[in-house]
């Protein structure tokens, strides 16, 4: 019972991130509409970004913008435990940019598919492909 509490309650944040990722993955696999699949892909991507950002937190630390500024920096050494880890933030900025670029190109592809097959449901598209 103690072990159960430690494993579930102690790490509840990882449970919630995993649930969010799995919602996205389920939408990508099981939905028929192409745009719903895209929404699932984006949910998956933002859930992973959430996971990385949560790794960067430190208890009692502040945002990664250094407050002392100018000539007085040499006097006070910057304490590392005062600022949260900025490295996952940088990586996730690139991830967000790539995510919006992929989303734009995927929507352009969906518009093109609709122009040709007049539908966005995956099974109807497969049927029309087989008929041709």
């Amino acid at each position: 019972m103690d072990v159960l509490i430690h494993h579930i309650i102690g790490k509840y944040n990882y449970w919630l991130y995993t649930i969010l990722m799995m919602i996205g993955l389920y939408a990508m696999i099981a939905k028929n509409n192409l745009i719903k699949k895209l929404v699932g892909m984006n949910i998956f991507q933002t859930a992973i970004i959430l996971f990385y950002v949560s790794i960067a937190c430190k208890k009692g630390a502040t945002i990664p913008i250094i407050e002392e500024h100018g000539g007085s920096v040499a006097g006070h050494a910057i304490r590392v435990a005062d600022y949260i880890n900025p490295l996952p933030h940088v990586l996730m900025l690139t991830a967000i940019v790539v995510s919006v670029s992929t989303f734009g190109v995927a929507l352009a592809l969906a518009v093109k598919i609709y122009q040709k097959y007049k539908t966005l449901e995956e099974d109807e598209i497969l049927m029309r492909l087989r008929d041709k």
Partner: protein
Amino acid sequence: MIPQLDIIILTLVIVCAIAAISVKDLLGCAILFGAYSFMMCLLWAVMGSVDVAFTEASVGAGVSTVFFVAAVFRTTRRTKD
């Protein structure tokens, strides 16, 4: 990093995500997706990453929703599942 705010916003995020993939109207899906992006931005701001939250607010809740609505305008609004 305030735990109560964290739990409320996380619950809202999961509710928005499940709703966004379940509605049968693609325009409603677009608006719920914008709400999901905005809730994520709040979550990251509460966790202290202000740059990532700024980017997600401008990109996810701004430009990405506009692209989505533009694509729904050019294709169809109805979906079967």
